[in-house]
């Protein structure tokens, strides 16, 4: 893994840099998302060897939770909002999560699985 760590970090930084250029010229998506799409295309068109970067990438993905902690601590500035609307927030999140769960689950089951089973 150590052997390819620098290579992987270089690839990620390069994709991010290209993403920043595109975001500066085109706008629209955040630079990091352009970077993500560039990495996907580079892998898809075999410009980057997936075996070389997979170990470093999975390390990054496994540990990236820590990056959200500072942003999350910012909730400290919303004492009043939580006090006033905390329960409403939780209820809205609860309802929309279950609506989405049901919609995707039912739609996939009816459109894809049932159609396939009736064909076969």
């Amino acid at each position, binding site marked *: 893994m150590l052997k390819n760590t620098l290579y992987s970090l270089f690839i990620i930084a390069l994709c991010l840099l290209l993403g920043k250029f595109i975001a500066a010229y085109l706008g629209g998506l955040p630079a990091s998302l352009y970077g993500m799409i560039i990495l996907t295309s580079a892998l898809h068109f075999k410009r980057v060897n997936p075996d070389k970067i997979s170990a470093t990438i999975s390390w990054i993905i496994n540990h990236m939770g820590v990056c959200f902690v500072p942003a999350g601590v910012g909730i400290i500035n919303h004492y009043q909002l939580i006090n006033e609307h905390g329960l409403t927030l939780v209820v809205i999140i609860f309802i*929309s999560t279950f609506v989405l769960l049901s919609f995707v689950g039912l739609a996939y089951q009816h459109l894809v699985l049932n159609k396939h089973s009736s064909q076969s």
Partner: protein
Amino acid sequence: MSKLLDKVDMLALTPSLFFILATIAVYQSFAYLQNKSRLIWLNPMLLSIASIIPLLLYFKLPFELYYHSTQFINNLLEPAVVALGFPLYQQLNSIKNQWEILGLILALGVILVIILSFTLTMIFIAIPKIAVSLSLKSITTPIAIALSQQLNGDSSITAFAIILAGLFGALLGPSWLNLINVKSPKAQGLAIGAASHALGTATISKISYEHGAYGSLALIVSAVITALICPFLINILSLWFW
């Protein structure tokens, strides 16, 4: 502890290093705890936030000091999003034959959930910043935070809404789907990946391989769809409410 902080002050050690180390140490201990206990609700991100807040309040440290000191950690979010291109690449092969129908279902789901969350928040709370944050709550955190900053949402509310959506789907998702008679592993994985992102996907991956594969497929595809649709949809919805 306050003596320790005085020492830190005396040493003229940049608060930066201290806060970064403290954040990583807190997070790692909770991550270890979760690995050992295997309990979903012992979410290391949630617990770290919940234990750093009282520490800051107790030692009367302003949030701005903490936030500026930990900019380094925050900046790692961007490369982390780029790294997600790898699982996206892995999933592309598996959806080759059915990408049209999958894309359609996930896109409709994304549109539905954005309209629903935005509208409900505007009706009951009426703060546009919060409405933007809640609209992004079903997708994976790095992409949601990037979008939330771009669309003038509030990152911390987004982060909290995401954890809650993840916990609801992870803890109650499988039983709810069984209840409404969605029993195929593929459909369950897809639904939980779309609604409860990585937190839900990690949890259901333990049920079966198919759960995990379809979960990560849905989580990455719906995040990309959200990124593409959200800016336009939020603009239209904002016009509606003014």
